[in-house]
């Protein structure tokens, strides 16, 4: 279970980013997790909530975009999601594909409310 460490890395990044928005509050963070990243989204959400609870980061939501394995056909160029590297292209039936993605573990975006408004409400 390394989701705790990974959730912690996300929070470290948020603490760093907070400095870019003095007086603002980060309400939401978007994280992209690929099927091949070796990270379980449910465990990640659980750890994230546990780490945020009772800290200055509250309220902070986590939105996970789970990304399937994606390939591009070398013959016709069509991109598609598949669970096997040797899957046939749904367009042309060829089995010659190139890996496009599905191993990502990325911070995609933050949603920030500006300082003035956060302080006034």
């Amino acid at each position, binding site marked *: 279970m390394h989701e705790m460490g990974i959730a912690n890395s996300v929070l470290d990044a948020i603490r760093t980013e907070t400095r870019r928005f003095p007086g603002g509050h980060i309400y939401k963070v978007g994280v992209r997790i690929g099927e091949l990243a070796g990270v379980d989204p449910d465990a990640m959400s659980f750890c994230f909530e546990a780490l945020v609870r009772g800290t200055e980061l509250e309220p902070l939501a986590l939105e996970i975009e789970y990304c399937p394995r994606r390939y591009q056909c070398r013959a016709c160029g069509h991109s598609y999601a598949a669970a096997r590297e040797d899957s046939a292209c749904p367009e042309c039936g060829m089995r010659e594909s190139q890996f496009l993605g599905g191993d990502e573990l*990325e911070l995609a975006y933050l949603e920030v409310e500006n300082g003035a408004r956060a302080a006034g409400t």
Partner: protein
Amino acid sequence: MERVQLERKVLSENDRIAAGLRARFAEHNILCLNLISSPGSGKTSLLERTLDSFDRSERVAVLTGDIQTENDAKRLARFGFPVKQITTGGTCHLDARMIERALLDWRLDDIDLLLIENVGNLVCPSSYDLGEAAKLVVLSVTEGEDKPLKYPSIFFKSELLILNKIDLLPYVPFDIAAAEENARSVHRNMDIVRVSCQTRQGMTEWLAWLDRKREISRAAASAS
């Protein structure tokens, strides 16, 4: 509410340290390999057989990771090569900083091949780059042949699959052809060797793979 795009890796700090290690390994012409498997698949036994096969003049070193105990380092130290245990104290994987720290008092100029035995775990170690040239995954025939499908991340990221304990094949229902087919469905160009650390069957193929890898690494170093 303002949305700010970030587009950066979650483990960028680990990746930064790993990139530093990779640069140092290149500078000192070190081939670094990261061995990963479930607990009990035979990483330590494979390393024992491997170290035993080397001439004592070979410049080989081992870092071995465990949650607790120095047992593996003791098993591996008797071959006379530098071995260091990394005890993670609960963490289920090695990360780049642990490797960096473990290397502090070793002279990198004295090492050609650095073998890292990760903590026994098929999931977590796959996320952490240690600066290695390649990850190797060990799967034993007492496990399920569907493991590559259940844990695709590590099979996708590993260059070589070592199918271990093949001496037990007559006694277990493991379908070795299906295991290889499953591994290649996740990672088409994966190299595969079948070994037994008990009978030493397949050790020649494994050592030949290692030699080839060392040769490629040396060629790349002399070209740069």
